[in-house]
C-alpha cells in the first residue's frame, strides 16, 4: 500500500525553492521516498491553493457567520441593528424547526416560514438525488455501451449525446418550463392535460426528467472512457470460454469500469444534493420540490447568518453522504486510488 511509508530520515538537507528536477540516480530508497514527498507537495500545491481561496475561505467565513444572530429591527428607528453572537441557536432553530415568537422565545415554525421546510427540503433533496442518480447511472451505462460499439454513425451519436449537456442550465430550465407548460408541446404530443408544474408527482417528475436529460451525458462520457480502457482481447477470451452477454457484463465490464463509474456516481451525487436551478425555475419550489439549496437562497434574502448555518448543515449532510459512500458502499475511491500501479485491488 502506498501509505505504508516507513519512517524515513532525509540525509540531504531539505532544500525548498524550485522543485528538484532529477534526483541523482542510485541513491538509497529512503532518499527516493523523500524525493517523492517533496514532489508530491509541489505537484499538489497549486490545486490546494486554488481550492483554499475560492472554497475554503468562503466556508470559514460562513461558519463564522453562522454563530451570529441575524440583524433585528430596532422598533424606535426602524433600522436594522447587528444581532450579536448566537451560539448554536441558528443550528438549533433549523434542526428543530423553531422560529422566533412575537412575544420573545421561539415557537414551532408555522407553515409559510422557511424554518418549517427544513426536514421536508432534506427529504426532497434525498429523493431527487436517489432517483436522478440511479436513472442517470442506468441510462448512462446503456448509452456508453452502445457508443463503445463500432457502427456507422457512431460519431453522430457521440456528438448528439453531449447536446443536452452543452445547453446552459439557464436555457435548459426555460426550455423545459416551456415544454411542460399546460399548453406546451409536452401535453400536446402525448395528448394529455397534466399540470406538470402544478401538482405534486408531476412536478417532481418534471424536475427529474429535466435533470436526467441534462446530466446523463456526463455519466455516459465518463463510463465510455472507462469502457475504452478494457482491452478487447478480454472479451474475446470470455466469448471463447462461452460466457453469456450478461456474464461478460457482470464479470468483466462492471468490475473493470468500476473506478470510472464510482467517480462519476460520486460526483453526480454531490451535485444532485446541491440541486438548485431546475426546480427553482420549473416550480419555484412548490409542490414539495424545494431542495436544500433553494431553501438556502431563499434564506439568504431573509437573513445571512441563518443562511450560513443552513449552508453549513447542508455541507455536513453532504459530507456524511460522501463519507458513507466512500466508506461502506464499496465506492472506496480513495482506497482504490492509493493502490495505484500496484495491480488492481
Amino acid at each position, binding site marked *: 500500500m502506498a501509505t505504508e511509508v516507513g519512517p524515513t530520515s532525509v540525509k540531504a538537507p531539505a532544500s525548498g525553492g524550485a522543485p528538484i528536477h532529477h534526483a541523482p540516480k542510485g541513491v538509497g530508497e529512503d532518499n527516493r521516498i523523500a524525493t517523492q514527498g517533496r514532489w508530491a507537495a509541489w505537484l499538489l500545491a497549486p490545486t490546494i491553493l486554488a481550492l483554499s481561496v475560492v472554497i475554503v475561505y468562503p466556508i470559514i467565513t460562513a461558519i463564522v457567520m453562522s454563530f451570529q444572530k441575524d440583524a433585528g429591527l430596532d422598533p424606535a428607528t426602524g433600522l436594522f441593528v447587528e444581532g450579536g453572537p448566537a451560539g448554536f441557536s441558528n443550528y438549533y432553530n433549523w434542526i428543530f424547526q423553531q422560529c422566533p415568537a412575537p412575544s420573545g422565545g421561539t415557537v414551532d415554525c408555522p407553515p409559510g416560514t422557511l424554518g418549517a421546510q427544513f426536514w421536508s427540503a432534506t427529504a426532497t433533496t434525498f429523493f431527487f438525488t436517489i432517483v436522478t442518480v440511479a436513472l442517470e447511472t442506468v441510462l448512462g451505462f446503456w448509452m456508453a455501451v452502445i457508443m463503445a460499439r463500432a457502427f456507422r454513425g457512431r460519431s453522430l451519436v457521440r456528438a448528439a449525446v453531449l447536446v443536452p449537456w452543452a445547453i*446552459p442550465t439557464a436555457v435548459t430550465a426555460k426550455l423545459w418550463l416551456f415544454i411542460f407548460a399546460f399548453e406546451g408541446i409536452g401535453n400536446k404530443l402525448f395528448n394529455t392535460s397534466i399540470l406538470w408544474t402544478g401538482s405534486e408527482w408531476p412536478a417532481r417528475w418534471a424536475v427529474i426528467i429535466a435533470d436526467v436529460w441534462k446530466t446523463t451525458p456526463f455519466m455516459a462520457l465518463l463510463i465510455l472512457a472507462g469502457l475504452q480502457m478494457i482491452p478487447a482481447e478480454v472479451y474475446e477470451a470470455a466469448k471463447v470460454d462461452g460466457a453469456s452477454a450478461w456474464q461478460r457484463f457482470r464479470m468483466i465490464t462492471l468490475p473493470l469500469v468500476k473506478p470510472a463509474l464510482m467517480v462519476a456516481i460520486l460526483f453526480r451525487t454531490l451535485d444532485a444534493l446541491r440541486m438548485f436551478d431546475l426546480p427553482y425555475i420549473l416550480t419555484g419550489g412548490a409542490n414539495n420540490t424545494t431542495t436544500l439549496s433553494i431553501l438556502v437562497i431563499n434564506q439568504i434574502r431573509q437573513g445571512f447568518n441563518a443562511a450560513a448555518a443552513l449552508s453549513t448543515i447542508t*455541507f455536513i449532510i453532504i459530507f456524511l453522504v460522501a463519507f458513507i459512500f466512500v466508506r461502506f458502499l464499496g465506492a472506496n475511491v480513495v482506497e482504490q486510488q492509493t493502490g495505484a500501479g500496484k495491480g488492481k485491488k
Partner: protein
Amino acid sequence: MTAATTAATELRAEQDRGRKTAQNREKWAQGRTYISAVVILIWCLAPAYWMVVTAFRDVGYTYDTSILPTHVTLDNFKTAFDTSFGNHFGQALLNSLFIGSVVTVVSLLIGVFAAYALARLNFKFKYLVLGFILGASMFPGVALITPLFQLFTNIGWMGTYQALIIPNISFVLPLTVYTMTSFFREMPWELEESARVDGCTQGQAFRKVIMPLAAPAIFTTAILAFISSWNEFLIASQLSSDATQPVTVAIASFAGAQPNQIPYTAIMAAGTIVTIPLVILVLVFQRKIVAGLTAGAVK
C-alpha cells in the same frame, strides 16, 4: 457417393448453418445497436429540436405547438446579436470561449500534476488531501457568492476576468483530479519504469511516455471541464461586468420588447447559438478521443 464425401458435405452444411446463425446473430446485434442508437438520438435531441424550432419561430407565435417549423423567421437571431438594446451577446460568446479555454487548460495542467502525485507518489496525508479535494465540492454553491463577492471587492477584482476564471477553476478541479487519478491508476506504468531504465528521469518518463497514453483521458476530462465552465452561471451573474459577462449571463438578461414578456424565442435562439460551438468542438475532438482511447486499450 462415398461415406467420406457425405461426411464432408454434411460438415460443410453444418458449417454453413453455423455461419448463418452467427451472421444472423451478428445482424440481430447490429440491428439492436441501431435501434438503441436511434432511441438515444431521439431522447437527446427531441427537446433540443424543440429549442431550434422555437428559435426560428416568429415571436408572435411563440406558443404554437406544430411539430414542424411554422412562421419561420431569422429575427430572433438578429435580436440576439443586436447590440443597440445593450445585448452583448457576441462579446459574451467570446468571453465564454476565453474563460472556458483558460479554465480548461489551467485546471487540467494543475489537475494532472495533482492526479499524478496522488496516483503515483508515496507520501503521508494522502487521504487527507483526497478528502480535502472532495470536500471542496460539497458546499452549496449559492453560499459561496457573498464571501467571494466581498473578497474580490476588497482586492479590486470585481468585473475582471480573473474573478470569473479562478472560481471556475476551483469548481472543476475536484472532478479533474479525481477522474485523472482514476485514469492514471489504469495506465500501464511498466512503460514508465522501462523508460527510466533507459535513462529518463521520472519527469521525462511522464512527459514522453505517459502523457501520450493519457491523451484520451485528458481529452475526456477537458470536455468535462470546458462544459462545466461554459455552463457556470451563479458566480458569473454576480461577479462579472458588461465587458466580461459570459454567455449564460447574457442569455439570462434577454428581455422582451415589453416588460413582463418572456422572449422565449430569442432565448431559444441564443441557446441554439451557444450549443453549436460545443457540438463542433466535440465533433473535432471526438476522433482524437476515440483514436487515443483505442490506442490506450491495446496495452
